C-alpha cells in the first residue's frame, strides 16, 4: 500500500507544481513507483513541468466521470520508467471533481504505486480540499515571506480539520518545504528567516530549496529539476528532502549559512 502525499500551500506561485515534479522524480530514481496527480483542474501545469504535454489523451476528470480507465489516463515518463503522471483537465472546471470519484481514483493508485503525490491547486476551495482529503502526509510549500506564511498557516489548520485522517482522529503528518530561499536577501533582512517561519508554523522542516535559475530553466525545458541536473543546489536539496520523506534523519543546512573560505573570496554567485 502506497503513501498519499499532498503538496499544498494556500498561496499560488510558491512552487507546488515544481516541487511535486522534483520530489516525484527524486523518489522514482530510488526505484520506487511514483505517480504525480495534477488536481489543478482548469489550470493544469504539471504536464508542462514534466514535459508530457503532448502526450495527454485522457485526464483525471475523464477517469472520475467514467469516460476513461485509470490505465488509459496515466502517462509514463520517458526518462524514468517508474514515474507516472495523471494530468488534470484543462477544459473542465473543478466542480467535475466529486468526493467519491476522487476517493476511488486515490484508492486505486494507492494499490498500484509506492507514492501518490497530489499536486494541489492554490486556494482553499474544492480542488484544494479534495486534493488533501485522502492524504497520509502533507507537504506545505512556503516562501519566506509573510503572505505565504500566513496562507500556509491557514492550510495547516484545514489539514488538521478537513482531511479524512483528521476526521478519524488520526494524526496528519505535516512537513514544511521552504522554497525560493535566497541567502543574499535573507542576509539583508529582506526575507523572513528560517527560524521565524518555523516558529510561526511549528511543523517539522523537510527541506530548504534555494532560489535558483536552474529551477526556472528546468521547468521551461519540461524536466523536473531533479532529472535535469542532479548536481545543482536545488536538485541536491530536493533529493535530500525525498530522503527525509523516506524517514531518513538528515540535518537541514540553511543555504548561505555555511559559506566557506572560497565564498568569502569570490563573493556571491549571481542568482
Amino acid at each position, binding site marked *: 500500500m502506497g503513501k498519499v502525499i499532498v503538496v499544498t500551500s494556500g498561496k499560488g506561485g510558491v512552487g507546488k507544481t515544481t516541487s511535486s515534479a522534483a520530489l516525484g522524480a527524486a523518489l522514482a530514481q530510488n526505484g520506487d513507483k511514483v505517480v504525480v496527480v495534477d488536481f489543478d483542474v482548469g489550470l493544469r501545469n504539471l504536464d508542462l513541468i514534466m514535459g508530457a504535454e503532448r502526450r495527454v489523451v485522457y485526464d483525471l476528470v475523464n477517469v472520475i466521470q467514467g469516460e476513461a480507465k485509470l490505465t488509459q489516463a496515466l502517462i509514463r515518463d520517458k526518462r524514468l520508467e517508474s514515474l507516472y503522471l495523471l494530468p488534470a483537465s484543462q477544459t473542465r472546471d473543478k466542480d467535475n471533481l466529486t468526493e467519491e470519484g476522487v476517493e476511488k481514483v486515490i484508492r486505486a493508485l494507492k494499490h498500484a504505486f509506492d507514492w501518490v503525490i497530489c499536486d494541489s491547486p492554490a486556494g482553499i476551495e474544492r480542488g484544494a480540499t479534495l486534493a488533501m482529503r485522502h492524504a497520509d502526509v502533507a507537504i506545505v510549500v512556503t516562501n519566506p515571506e509573510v503572505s505565504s506564511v*500566513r496562507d500556509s*498557516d*491557514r492550510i*495547516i*489548520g484545514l489539514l488538521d480539520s478537513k482531511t479524512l485522517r483528521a476526521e478519524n482522529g488520526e494524526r496528519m503528518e505535516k512537513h514544511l518545504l521552504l522554497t525560493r530561499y535566497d541567502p543574499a536577501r535573507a542576509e539583508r533582512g529582506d526575507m523572513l528567516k528560517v527560524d521565524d517561519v518555523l516558529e510561526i508554523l511549528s511543523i517539522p522542516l523537510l527541506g530548504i530549496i534555494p532560489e535558483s535559475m536552474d529551477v526556472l530553466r528546468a521547468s521551461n525545458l519540461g524536466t523536473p529539476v531533479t532529472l535535469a541536473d542532479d548536481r545543482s543546489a536545488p536538485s541536491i536539496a530536493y533529493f535530500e528532502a525525498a530522503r527525509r520523506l523516506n524517514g531518513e534523519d538528515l540535518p537541514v543546512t540553511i543555504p548561505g549559512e555555511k559559506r566557506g573560505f572560497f565564498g568569502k573570496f569570490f563573493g556571491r554567485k549571481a542568482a
Partner: protein
Amino acid sequence: MTNVLTQPRPIRLKGRSFLALALTPELPFEDWLVRLDDLASRSTGFFMRRPVVLDITGMEIDRSQLHGLVEQLRTRNVRIMGIEGARPSLLDANLPPAMTDGRPTSDIEAPPNEDTKAGAVEAVAPQAPQPAKAPSSLVVTQPVRSGQSLIFTEGDVTIVGSVASGAEVIAGGSIHIYGTLRGRAMAGTMGNASARIFCRKLEAELVAIDGYYKTAEDLGSDLRGKPVQFWLEDDTFKFGSLA
C-alpha cells in the same frame, strides 16, 4: 456643517446570548396557524412579550410566503425577532434579521389542553435554561491557526502555543497564551470587565476586553515582542510588561 467628534470615546459592542422561543412552523401554513390559534385560545398571551425566533430550516418557501407568515403572526401578537435557517436570498430589509448558531435548551412546554386536564391544572412555567454543567476553562495544546476562530464563552482559555495572524480567540473569561499572540484576542466578551489577556510574546493584531478594543496601531511599538498583560481599569484599557 461637519460634525466633529471631539470625544474619542469608543462605541461599545458586545456579544450576548439570550433565551428565546424558537417557533417551527409547518406547511401548509393555514393548518399550522389553526393549531397555533388553538394553543393561543387556551393560553392567552403565551407569546406576549416573549422574544420569538422563527425556525424555517429546510423549508421550501418563497419570500412572499414568509412575508405572509410573519404578517399573520403579527396579527396574533406574536412578534418575530429573528429568523433562523433562512437562505440569505429569502430575507430582505422588511423581514426580521437572520439568526445563526442557536443552541437548544430545555423545551418550553405549551400550556396543557384544559379540556382534557380539567381540574388539575398546574401552571407549567417555562423552565429556566439549564445548560449541562460545562467546564469553566478550556486548555488548547495546539497552535491556533490562521482562519480559525476559537470561541469559549463559558470561561477562561489557556493556549499552550501561538495564535497565528488571522486567527481569533474569544473567551468569556481571561485568555492566557503561552506563545506568541499574532492574531486577535477578545476576553470578557460576555460582559466580564475583570477579564485579562496574557501572552508571552505580543505581536497582536487586536486585543479586546469586555467590548473595549485596541488595534496593533494603538498599542505602539514599545511592547512588541514582549510578554504583556492587558486589563481594564475604570473602563480604560491598561497594559503592562509581564517581564
